[in-house]
């Protein structure tokens, strides 16, 4: 019995158990506490399963039906790396939610949507079937639309609606592309389609479906010029949800699905993505420089950092893909940490405006310290994780004969540093305002969660060591590079 299928079953079951409890239990306190416990136990178990699954390679036929007839669930190095990242971040986010979500009226609804979103993401990572990939993308997207608008204020509903329209367009593209592939080959299984494409001629219809996929996943990954929804949606969501959206959702639904489909199914040339990556790096960071809303600034940085990941993967060399995937893991850790920190500041101060903060290091040392670590990581300072992944991406650019790309990547990194200097100066250093003297450190669970992520920011630097790299990152790189060899995964 492959235990990775529990990564889909546990959150799905948990979501509906919490929903049933929410309807059956009258007292709000009991409801909140039970949903806290259930959600945290489930995400803890899932993080445990995912982190101990490295090295697994295989597929599972749901219902016992053989492959072209039935649905299969497949795991290889790439999916396991993503699963470990997603579920670790999800555990930190649920731990953080225990205190943070007290501000909202309906905690159990929140947990049930959160677990559904997690089901969708894990499903995307494990699906070996194109139509199921689409279904899981929809599960994750639709629950994230609801989570973005969870506060039901005007701004949040507007952001959620915008996100829903853009996401809906992306989903339609995906469905259309899947329909084209199904009409061409008569199968929906990813491995079978991959085999069929490798022996068929490149018809215009196939190219059209590839472009539909690229456009759709670029919207989901918020690559410029498809990014318009992100700077609204990510700040509007509650902090742990922003951490999930920026940290893992755009990567799972966007980058993972795009890489899987371009590299493993179409086995196509990815170099067309490099210009998009460069544009995202530069425009994202330039747009971020002008922001004074803390979460909006972080959201623009997500666009920029996703550019780095795309740039690394688009080089198509082993080193480039290694850098891209390493940066993907690192970015999920430090970006969720930054969003959780901004949530802690907003929880105590009631504002996200950088101009109204200042000197918070004196009253919130844990939040200040961890956000300092995260800022240095995202700016690419040694010895934090962001330094190593950016270094690998830049080296890979030079190695593959694109020194121009390397220059842009360095320029983006310097601008990132200056932008985070601004955050640190305005929010955590400087003079503490008189009205903020009484502010206390963030509550216990929130602090524990950010400390775990800050430790991970330093610990993941160790992934560059050859011994650790060969267990964690190398199988993922090999899986991406194997191209149509992905088809071997089915038994």
């Amino acid at each position: 019995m492959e235990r990775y299928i529990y990564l889909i079953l546990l959150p799905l079951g948990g979501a509906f158990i919490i929903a049933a409890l929410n309807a059956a239990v009258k007292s709000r306190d009991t409801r909140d506490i039970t949903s806290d416990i259930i959600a945290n136990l489930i995400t803890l178990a899932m993080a445990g399963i995912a982190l101990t699954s490295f090295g697994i390679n295989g597929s599972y036929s749901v219902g016992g039906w053989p492959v072209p007839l039935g649905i299969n669930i497949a795991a290889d190095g790439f999916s396991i790396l993503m699963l470990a990242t997603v579920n670790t971040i999800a555990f930190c986010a649920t731990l953080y939610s225990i205190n943070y979500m007290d501000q909202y009226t309906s905690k159990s609804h929140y947990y049930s949507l959160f677990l559904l979103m997690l089901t969708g993401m894990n499903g995307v990572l494990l699906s070996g079937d194109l139509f199921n990939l689409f279904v899981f993308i929809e599960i994750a997207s639709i629950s994230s639309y609801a989570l973005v608008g969870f506060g039901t204020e005007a701004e949040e509903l507007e952001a959620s609606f915008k996100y829903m329209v853009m996401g809906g367009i992306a989903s339609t593209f995906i469905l259309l592309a899947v329909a084209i592939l199904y009409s061409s080959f008569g199968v929906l299984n990813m491995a079978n389609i991959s085999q069929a494409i490798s022996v068929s001629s490149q018809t215009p219809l196939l190219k059209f479906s590839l472009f539909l996929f690229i456009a759709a996943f670029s919207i989901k990954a918020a690559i410029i010029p498809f990014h318009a929804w992100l700077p609204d949606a990510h700040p509007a969501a509650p902090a742990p949800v922003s951490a999930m959206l920026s940290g893992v959702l755009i990567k799972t639904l966007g980058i993972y699905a795009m890489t899987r489909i371009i590299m493993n199914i179409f086995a196509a040339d990815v170099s067309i993505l490099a210009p998009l990556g460069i544009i995202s790096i530069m425009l994202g960071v330039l747009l971020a420089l002008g922001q004074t809303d803390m979460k909006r600034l972080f959201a623009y940085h997500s666009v920029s950092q996703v550019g780095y990941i795309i740039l690394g993967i688009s080089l198509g060399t082993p080193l480039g893909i290694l850098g891209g995937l390493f940066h993907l893991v690192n970015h999920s850790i430090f970006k969720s940490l930054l969003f959780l920190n901004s949530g802690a500041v907003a929880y105590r101060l009631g504002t996200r405006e950088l101009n109204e903060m200042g000197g918070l290091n004196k009253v919130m040392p844990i939040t200040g310290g961890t956000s300092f670590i995260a800022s240095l990581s995202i700016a690419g300072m040694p010895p934090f994780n962001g330094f190593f992944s950016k270094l690998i991406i830049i080296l890979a650019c030079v190695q593959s004969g694109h020194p121009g790309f390397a220059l842009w990547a360095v320029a983006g990194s310097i601008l990132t540093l200056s932008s985070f200097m601004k955050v640190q100066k305005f929010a955590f250093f400087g003079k503490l305002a008189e009205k903020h003297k009484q502010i206390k450190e963030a509550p216990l669970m929130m602090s524990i969660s950010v400390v775990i992520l800050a430790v991970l920011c330093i610990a993941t630097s160790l992934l560059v060591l050859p011994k650790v790299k060969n267990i964690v990152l190398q199988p993922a790189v090999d899986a991406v590079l194997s191209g149509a060899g992905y088809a071997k995964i089915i038994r």
Partner: protein
Amino acid sequence: MNDEKNISSGMSEVVKTVCNIVEGFIFVFGCYIVLYGQLSPGGGFAGGVILAAVFILIMLAFGKERVLKIMPRKRGAFIEALGALSFLAVAWAGLYVSGIFFKNFIPTTAASHFKLMSGGTILIYNIAIALKVMAGLFLVFFVLSITRVILEGDKLKMVKKQ
């Protein structure tokens, strides 16, 4: 003023009478579609939509008070979660009975004369889906009918209708 009171408690007497006659038939037809869907066109989703239509019909004809007596909001939410949970439970049972998730572990019989036909676990799945779709669709309709977006200053706000 008397007219306004009538409007708030539903539609005209003709509609109410017709609704009283047909609602039972529609409900039975919905159950038939759910239960027979394992062997013929139909199934949990289609049947569930028909069952939800009964509640929506009652709500349109008589107003929301009467439908809330049969199906309060909390009960609807519970039935919906229960539908999803029982679907998952049957799928999970396959894992424990025969070692494969989603395995159809109840014996199925092929079509033959004078024998009872069975689709195995498909029947239970259909019932679970019907519960979920019935409650879910009704709740969507209900929530849409009780909320309203108003303009407050220059901001839109979502409020509960009185």
